[in-house]
């Protein structure tokens, strides 16, 4: 459906995108995950035809996205990171304008607008000025504006920036509905939770390059440890060498800070009983046990040596 092939873009000496390639199949949702400045937005801009790549090309159904009036652009719906709406106009007038950009008017436009507003739950606010909307409502309208021409590929550039959790959930529900309708979604974010919830596949981008491109499970498999066991010891000072736990089958590493013992396991169900037994028999009583699942933050940290949010 969508192919990005060797995309490169530089601004003077600053290389924003350095040979990014990936493919997205019809109906698939991929997440472009990376810290701010990783090159996600530049990549999306090249896919949408806003920027001409210095090298490489974008293909939609095998046709290159080049030229201003290329009909292939009708297959793309862009949801920009900015709230690209006219605040001074009612929601309906905004949508009529954006429909007209794709030569949609009259009854056809009304039907498309109705459906888009219905999807994002703003039908009853159609005649209100956008300036009166909350941030979350504007985000939803921003999404609706990209759906009017029924694109097969939706490019979502951090569509939940600055919204409250409730609105974020509403947007996610909308995206899941679109996904269920067979739309191809390219979702850029630096929120790992969003990518984890929505995406079939994750393309991790850093410094303008693809660091990893895999399913969530595939990415987790790359981790040396997939789970972390957290044990609160009654007296941590009695455990002089936590690395001795590596002798227990399935344990990758262990760390003791105060009374809190962290143990990284290859597999939680296989490794946890052995660790608890080792502690009990070794005279290290504990009063609380919990575990942490692996996440994309861990994956990013492992692959780049840096935190997603701190980069």
């Amino acid at each position, binding site marked *: 459906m969508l192919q990005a092939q060797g995309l490169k873009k530089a601004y003077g000496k600053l290389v924003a995108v350095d040979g990014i390639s990936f493919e997205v199949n019809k109906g698939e949702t991929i997440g472009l995950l990376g810290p701010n400045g990783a090159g996600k937005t530049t990549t999306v801009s090249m896919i949408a035809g806003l920027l001409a790549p210095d090298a490489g090309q974008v293909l939609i159904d095998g046709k290159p996205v080049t030229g*201003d009036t290329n009909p292939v652009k*009708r297959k793309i719906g862009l949801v920009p990171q900015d709230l690209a*709406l006219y605040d001074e*106009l009612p929601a309906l007038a905004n949508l009529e304008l954006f429909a007209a950009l794709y*030569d949609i008017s009259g009854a056809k436009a009304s039907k498309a607008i109705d459906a888009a507003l219905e999807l994002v739950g703003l039908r009853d606010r159609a005649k209100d000025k956008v300036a009166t909307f909350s941030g979350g409502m504007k985000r939803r309208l921003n999404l609706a504006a990209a759906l009017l021409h029924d694109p097969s590929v939706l490019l979502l550039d951090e569509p939940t920036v600055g919204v409250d959790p409730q609105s974020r959930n509403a947007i996610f529900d909308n995206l899941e509905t679109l996904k269920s309708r067979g739309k191809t979604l390219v979702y850029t974010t630096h929120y790992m939770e969003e990518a984890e919830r929505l995406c079939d596949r994750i393309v991790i981008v850093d410094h303008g390059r693809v660091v990893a491109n895999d399913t969530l499970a595939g990415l987790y498999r790359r981790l040396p440890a997939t789970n972390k066991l957290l044990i609160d010891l009654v007296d941590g000072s009695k455990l002089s060498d936590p690395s001795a736990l590596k002798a227990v089958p399935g344990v990758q590493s262990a760390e003791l800070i105060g009374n809190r013992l962290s143990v990284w396991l290859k597999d939680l169900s296989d490794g946890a009983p052995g660790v608890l037994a080792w502690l009990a028999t070794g005279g290290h009583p504990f009063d609380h046990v919990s575990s942490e699942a692996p996440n994309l933050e861990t994956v990013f940290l492992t692959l780049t040596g840096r935190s997603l949010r701190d980069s």
Partner: protein
Amino acid sequence: MTAFLALVRKDIRIFFQDRRAVIMSFVAPILIGSFFGYVFGGASRSSDPGRVTVLVVDQEAGAVSKAILSKLTANKTLAVQNSTLEDAKQLVRKGKAPVAIVIPPNFGKLATQAMFSGRERPKVQVYLDPSHQMESSMIEGMLTGYVMEAVSKEAFSGDLGRATVDDSLKQLESVPAQESAPLKGFLQALSRYNQSTQSNQTNRRDAGLSVPFELSEEKLTSRQGTEYNPYAHSFGGMAIQFILFMGIDVGIGMLLDRQRGLWKRFASAPLSKWTLLSSRAVSATLIAMLILAVVFAFARIVFGVKIEGSLPGFIAVCAGFGLMTSAYGLLIAALGKTPQAARGLSILATLLMVMLSGAWIPSFLFPGWLQSATKLVPARWAMDGLDGMTWRGLGWHEAVLPVAALVAFALIFGTIAVWRFRWETE
């Protein structure tokens, strides 16, 4: 075409949604145009013409000074007030009066004597407010004429004149006859003339020197009998100024669209660059023409401003100026980096353009070189075109050059805008 029309409709709708823009574009030119029209001649069309205050300190209080005072008072352009020397100087210094005239003691006698002999001439002191040089010069000119008339009348028919002639004849007796004969003959003839006018009141009234011509004034407007309407110029000028401000808003609006990410939506749609820019140009041109129509309709209803010349020519000038303004807006959008940075610079450029167009003060008051230089200013052509089609009452062929110049400027601005426009966006 759907996209093009939708973009034009959107621009017009947004313009009318912005109350500030509407006030600035429609109300401000009407208010300021009314004020300038009133100040630059509109007042003189009413029954209460504006007069120049002249303070007169009459230290002679004789026949000559009274005659001068009477002539000054009779002039409808002057408001003559008697004053003391100290008060007059104080009032001129404070700017309460542009000029004060001091007629010294024995002015009539000394001036009459100075006419027929080389005796010292009396001095009429004039105190001027330097910020009113034009009015002061005008009053000095009037005063010279009035003094000549009053003094010569006294010399040829008044008591002072007779006494002066008799006194001069006595003095000539001590001069050798060969040297004094011509002047003596003239003075004797003048003495006889004085005696004859003494007995004939009609001749006495007409005696003395007078200005040897009369001025016949006709204002050459659209046609004979049609009064010049200063509101035509002031409304045209102010409409030009505020339409150019609207042009700034066009450019700033496009930069804001870019900043708000709207340009991304436009650029991601299958639209040509031509559609995007030309729709903005067309909407701006339509708004500019609407502003001109409303402003001149108001001027027509309230101040009687008429299109004395060609109506098609007037419409063509309005369209040409609208087109030039829209191209100016595109230029601002193309050259401006951010709305904030573009606003200050474009306001300065616009004010300079308006100033040089003659919209504030007529361009004929500029020095010659500046009048020629302002032909490089597009708004000057708009001003000339509007003046020509309104109060000057010129035909459509006189609109051709201004319209051609405005279209040429629009093409230049538009070409630079397209060349420098940052099409790519991220």
